[in-house]
């Protein structure tokens, strides 16, 4: 199967992830895994945005909004105490169906909330619905008009997060419980769970990568790229450009929301800093520096830059660094870093000797 070649980098990445673990363990620096795990969840946003922006050619300056809708929805549903309502018909029904869980927060308060998997499904459905409504009305806009409309969406989500009591206003939502997956695995940021969460996050990212790679090499992926290249020609060949653009928009929003849900459970909290315009700009900058229509570039840059940012390498100039990256890329390498001639010769060499 020639198609298997497409997955070689996935196997290589998987091996690299294990090697990285061993190296960190060897040097007693496994605490780095925390930021790597967080970066991996941010990378999910970048992978989705890469599909939308790099391949389908539709800019979005509102993807932090989708990340936050996923994260906040999951946080609220798993922390909102349903005990006062436990005897109402609806909540009793939910309990009987196993949709809720009983737990104690760090203060020892008994909490009855929705189970994380229920919250996760609800969060993704909500994100999909919001993306559908927003996308249906703005996706036919072109170029910077679309960028501005999505920027407006991001701002609205930010103000809603800041102004809504149930979303914790400026404090956000904390005490988010861990997310129990199968076989004893759980999304949980505490130190004993560090290693398994490193692998959980990477597993999710690699699955997302495989799905995205498959998509861009498929009939649909070709149609997405054709819209980017020449929308009128694509339309005349039977591509329902509006529907395709909308579908990719929703898909990329859901990728972002998955990152939001999992990172919120990992961190145990989410706050309005996740929804700022600068977060959306950061995702765009990462896709650009990764080479726009380049999923691996987006992933590598997504991990590296977020990791450096989370380690505090950029200090208080964090946002400024991402702004500067965006400017530099637009001026010196609008096709992305990997298309710079000298590097291109290098990648060609690598391709010849795999």
């Amino acid at each position: 199967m020639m198609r298997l070649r497409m997955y070689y980098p996935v196997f290589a990445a998987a091996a690299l992830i294990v090697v990285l673990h061993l190296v960190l363990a060897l040097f007693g620096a496994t605490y780095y895994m925390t930021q790597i795990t967080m970066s991996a969840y941010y990378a999910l946003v970048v992978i989705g945005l890469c599909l939308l922006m790099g391949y389908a050619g539709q800019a979005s300056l509102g993807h932090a909004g989708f990340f936050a809708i996923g994260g906040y929805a999951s946080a609220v549903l798993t922390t909102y105490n349903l005990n006062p309502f436990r005897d109402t018909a609806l909540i009793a029904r939910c309990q009987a169906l196993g949709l809720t869980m009983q737990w104690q927060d760090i203060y020892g308060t008994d909490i009855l909330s929705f189970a994380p998997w229920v919250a996760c499904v609800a969060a993704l459905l909500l994100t999909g619905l919001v993306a559908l409504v927003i996308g249906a009305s703005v996706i036919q806009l072109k170029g910077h008009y679309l960028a501005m409309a999505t920027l407006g969406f991001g701002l609205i989500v930010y103000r809603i997060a800041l102004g809504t009591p149930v979303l914790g206003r400026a404090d956000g939502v904390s005490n988010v419980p861990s997310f129990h997956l199968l076989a004893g695995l759980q999304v949980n940021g505490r130190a004993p769970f560090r290693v398994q969460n490193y692998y959980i996050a990477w597993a999710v990212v690699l699955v997302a990568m495989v799905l995205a790679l498959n998509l861009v090499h498929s009939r649909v992926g070709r149609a997405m790229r054709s819209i980017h290249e020449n929308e009128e020609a694509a339309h005349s060949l039977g591509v329902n450009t509006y529907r395709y653009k909308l579908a990719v928009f929703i898909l990329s929003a859901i990728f972002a929301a998955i990152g939001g849900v999992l990172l919120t459970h990992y961190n145990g909290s989410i706050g309005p800093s996740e929804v700022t315009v600068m977060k959306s700009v950061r995702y765009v900058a990462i896709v650009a520096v990764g080479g726009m229509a380049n999923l691996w570039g987006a992933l590598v840059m997504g991990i590296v830059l977020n990791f450096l940012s989370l380690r505090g390498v950029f200090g208080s100039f964090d946002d400024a660094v991402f702004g500067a990256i965006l400017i530099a890329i637009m001026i010196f390498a609008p096709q992305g870093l990997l298309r710079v001639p000298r590097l291109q010769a290098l990648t060609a060499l690598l391709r010849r000797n795999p």
Partner: protein
Amino acid sequence: MSNVLLETKGLARSFGGVHAVRDVSFHVPTESIKAVIGPNGAGKTTLFNLIAGTLAPHRGEVIYRGQAITGHKPHAVAALGIARTFQTTKLFPHMTVLENVMMGRHTRTRSGFLAGMLNLPGTWREHRQTEAKAHNILADLGLAAYAGETACNLSFGRQRLVEFARALATEPSLLLLDEPAAGLNIYETQELSQLILRIRATGITCLVVEHDMSLVMNISDEVVVLDQGQKIAEGPPAQIQRHPEVIRVYLGDEHG
């Protein structure tokens, strides 16, 4: 009327105060080559866009195989078996020649988002069939050697040919050709005539908007002449060449 593939009835479209197309009616018989000619600004391309769905007419009807397709969107028109080329070649410049032609198979293939993401066996099989089909068409047009080339690296003439290949990949019943000879030299134009005749021989009806009189007169069965958005003559090429109104429009009053 079963031998009429496409018909327009009183088609009209204006931009602001300019009547780009007014009250144009004609029909295209199945497996014929019909040409639409006229001086610059006669409304030829607008007429094309009205048929292909790029523009919606203000009045009138477009009837294809006996059914009104007026105001259908381009993708819906394409799905019915109407393919087109553009006046200025519109390839997907950074995709390979092969991928460009594979795009022509879009309406003939099914795989959606989910199947694409999961890369199901059926999807993969469909992909290979599409690829094989595209290779065949490229070979047929003498473009086999360029399959892996990025489209924008090809010469102008070859890009035009790739656009033909892409349109043919849709297996159209009706091919709309918008000034296919524009920018081609005499030899290339002659080759183009042969190509269009070959396409028609495979059972594809062609509607050609053209400036180049030699091309039109050599290959078309019938010609429609537009001037200032209106049809001023229609008939076989020999008759059109002698039509006083056509001579007046093309050469000026004193020749009429």
